C-alpha cells in the first residue's frame, strides 16, 4: 500500500483510475461484481483473512522471495548495481500464485465451489489449477487453441492438477479470446463460479484486488532494500503484459517519488512494424474486457492481433492503473524487442545461473540496454517475475534444436 497520508488513492470508489478502469460489462455480471467488491472490502479489513493469506504465502508459496544481488551481471554491464526480486522461486514458478491464493480465499468465503480462469502461456492457468487443488475447488481454464499448441507442457500440467482445459477457437485463438470465453462462462454460471482474473485488468474490483494481492512483492522488496542496502532503490523495472507483476512491485513505492518506475512492454518485431504488444507505447484509449485503458486497435475500434515471443505479454490491452500512471507521469513505459529479450534470457543464464521467463527477460533486456545511462552508484531492482523452464522449447526451436 502507499504510505499513510498518501495523496495517491486509486481507484475512486466507482473503480476508476483517472479516465481509465471502470466496469464495462454485461448487466448480468454487475451483481457478482458488487458482491465481490463488498466481500473483498470486508476481507481486507479482517485480520483473520489477512492471516490466512500471509500463512499460505509463507508456507505454500514459499515467501518472502529473496532480493538477490546479481554481481556478475552487474560487473558485465558495468553500470548500476542490479538486484533481482526472485518471484521465479515461488511455488509454480511465477508471481501469478500470489493473486490466485488471495482470490481462492475469496471464492471460499463467497461459498463458490467452482473457479474459472483464462491463460495465455499457461502460468496463470497452472497457478489457478494449483490453488483449486489446494482448496478443493472445481477448476476450468480457458486457453486459445494457438496457445495450447505452443504450451503443451503447461496444458498437461493443468490436467495433472485436476483442471479441465477448454480450447478457445474464436477470434485470434489466443489470450484475449480466452478472456472473452471466460467472461461468457462466468455470465452463464455466475451463481456458483468465481472468475480468477490473472492480471490487474477486467472490471472493477479486479484491477484493485489483484494489485493488492500482488503488492506483497513491492512490500517485501521495499523492506529488503532498506535492510540489505540501507536505502531505497533508484529504479524499479518490470515487464508489462496485463501488468500484475509490475504493479505488485511498483505500488508500495508510489509515494517514494525519487524512485523511478519503469514498465517494459513487448516490442515484438519492433514498434515500427506494428507487430508488437505495446499498447502503452503505441495504442489508443478504448474499452475491452470490462475496463477502459490503452489498447491496440484499428481506426474502427477493432482489437488488433498482437505479437510477442512471450505468450504472457501477447495481449492487446493493459491494466487500467498502468494507463493512469502513464497519464500522470508517475511511471514510464518503454519496450524491448523479441531479439533483445532473447539476448537477455541467454545473458542471465550465463552470468547468474538463473533462467528467466521470456516475459521477465524483457525487464532484464531494458536494463542491459539502458545500463550505460544509469549511474554506477544506482540501485536497480528487476522483478524476475517467473522462471523460464516453460520457454526452453521455444528457445531451442529458435536455435534449430528439436527436443
Amino acid at each position: 500500500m502507499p504510505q499513510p497520508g498518501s495523496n495517491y488513492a486509486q481507484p475512486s470508489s466507482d473503480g476508476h483510475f483517472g479516465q481509465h478502469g471502470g466496469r464495462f460489462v454485461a448487466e448480468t455480471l454487475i451483481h457478482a461484481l458488487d458482491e465481490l467488491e463488498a466481500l473483498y472490502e470486508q476481507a481486507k479489513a479482517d485480520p483473520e483473512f489477512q492471516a490466512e493469506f500471509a500463512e499460505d504465502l509463507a508456507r505454500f508459496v514459499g515467501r518472502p522471495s529473496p532480493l538477490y544481488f546479481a554481481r556478475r551481471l552487474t560487473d558485465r554491464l558495468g553500470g548500476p548495481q542490479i538486484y533481482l526480486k526472485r518471484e521465479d522461486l515461488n511455488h509454480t514458478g511465477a508471481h501469478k500464485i500470489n493473486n490466485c491464493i488471495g482470490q481462492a480465499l475469496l471464492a471460499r468465503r463467497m461459498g463458490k465451489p467452482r473457479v474459472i480462469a483464462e491463460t495465455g502461456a499457461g502460468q496463470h492457468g497452472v497457478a489457478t489449477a494449483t490453488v483449486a487443488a489446494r482448496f478443493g475447488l472445481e477448476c476450468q481454464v480457458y486457453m486459445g487453441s494457438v496457445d495450447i499448441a505452443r504450451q503443451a507442457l503447461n496444458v498437461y500440467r493443468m490436467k495433472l492438477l485436476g483442471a479441465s482445459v477448454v480450447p478457445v477457437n474464436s477470434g485470434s485463438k489466443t489470450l484475449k479470446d480466452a478472456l472473452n470465453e471466460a467472461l461468457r462462462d462466468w455470465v452463464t454460471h455466475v451463481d456458483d463460479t468465481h472468475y480468477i482474473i490473472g492480471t490487474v485488468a477486467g472490471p472493477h474490483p479486479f484491477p484493485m484486488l489483484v494489485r493488492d494481492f500482488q503488492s506483497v512483492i513491492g512490500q517485501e522488496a521495499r523492506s529488503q532494500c532498506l535492510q540489505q542496502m540501507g536505502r531505497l532503490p533508484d529504479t524499479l523495472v518490470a515487464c508489462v503484459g496485463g501488468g500484475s507483476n509490475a504493479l505488485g512491485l511498483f505500488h508500495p513505492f508510489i509515494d517514494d517519488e525519487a524512485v523511478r518506475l519503469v514498465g517494459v512492454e513487448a516490442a515484438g518485431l519492433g514498434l515500427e512494424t506494428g507487430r508488437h504488444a505495446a499498447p502503452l507505447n503505441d495504442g489508443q484509449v478504448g474499452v475491452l474486457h470490462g475496463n477502459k485503458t490503452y489498447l491496440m486497435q484499428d481506426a474502427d475500434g477493432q482489437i488488433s492481433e498482437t505479437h510477442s515471443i512471450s505468450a504472457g505479454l501477447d495481449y492487446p490491452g493493459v491494466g487500467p492503473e498502468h494507463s493512469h500512471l502513464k497519464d500522470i507521469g508517475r511511471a514510464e513505459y518503454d519496450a524491448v524487442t523479441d531479439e533483445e529479450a532473447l539476448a537477455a534470457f541467454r545473458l542471465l543464464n550465463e552470468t547468474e545461473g538463473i533462467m528467466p521467463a521470456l516475459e521477465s527477460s524483457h525487464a532484464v533486456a531494458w536494463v542491459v540496454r539502458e545500463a550505460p545511462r544509469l549511474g554506477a552508484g544506482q540501485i536497480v531492482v528487476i522483478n524476475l517475475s517467473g522462471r523460464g523452464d516453460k520457454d526452453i522449447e521455444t528457445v531451442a526451436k529458435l536455435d534449430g534444436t528439436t527436443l
Partner: protein
Amino acid sequence: MSRIGQTLEALRSQQRTALVPFITAGDPHLDATVPALNALVQGGADLLELGVPFSDPEADGPAIQASSERALANGTGLRDVLDCVAEFRAGNDQTPVILMGYLNSVLAMGEGAFATAAAEAGVDGMIIVNLPPEESDSLRGALAKQGIDLILLAAPTTSDERLSAIDRAATGFVYLVSLKGTTGADHISIGEVKQHLARLRARTRLPILVGFGIKDGPTARALGKQADGVVVGAAIVSRMAALSADTDAIPETLRQFAHDLRQALDA
C-alpha cells in the same frame, strides 16, 4: 416521442407484441443486409436490431460470434453499418432501427461524431451490451441531443433497487435479458423469465422487450403474453449461416421465419 416510442405505443394500443429480429450488418456480405432487413419487415417485424460487428463480442454465443467474424472478414466497419441504415431508411421511414454492439466501436469514432452520423443515417436507438448505466452518462447525453434512445438492459441478477435505477435512466424501452448467459443460449426458462418480467413491470412504465435464447414461435408466444416485445437473434443468424452456399435465398427464408414468428405472436 421517438420512432421507437411511437411504434411501441401503437402496438400496445392494438394489444400486439412487438417482433424484433436481429441480424449482424455485413453478414454474409454488406449487399445482403438491406434486403434482409426489408424481408424481415415484410414478414412482420415491428422494430429491427442491427448488430455492429466487433472483434471481441464477449456477451455473444457462438452463432452471433461467428456472424460477427464473417462480417469483419469482409471488411464491415461502423461507417458501413450506418450506410446500411441510411439505405434502408431511404425506402422505409416507419420501422425503428436499433444498433446493437460494443462500446469500443462508438468510442473509436467518438461519441459526438457517432451520435451525429447515426442520427443522419436514421438510427433510432442504441444497445451497448457492455455499457451499464453507471458508465453511460456521456454517451446517453450525446445520443439524446440527436434524439436517439440509449436502451438499457436488465438481467435476472439485477436487484429490485437497481431495476428502479435503470428505469430512471432508461428511454425508449427496457431490454430484459431472459437468462444468465450469452445470446443464443439454450437454457431459457419461461417460468423464470415471467418472474423477472413481473419484477421489472412493477418498477417501470416503459415497454419491456425480452431477448436472449428465444428461438421459435412457441417461446416467443409464451413470453409475448407478458412482454411488450421479443427479440430473436441467434435463430435468425443461424438460418442465414446455413444458406452460405445460396445467399440469394436469404431474404425469402427470413421473410418466412418472421412471418411464422408473427403468426405465433398474434395467435
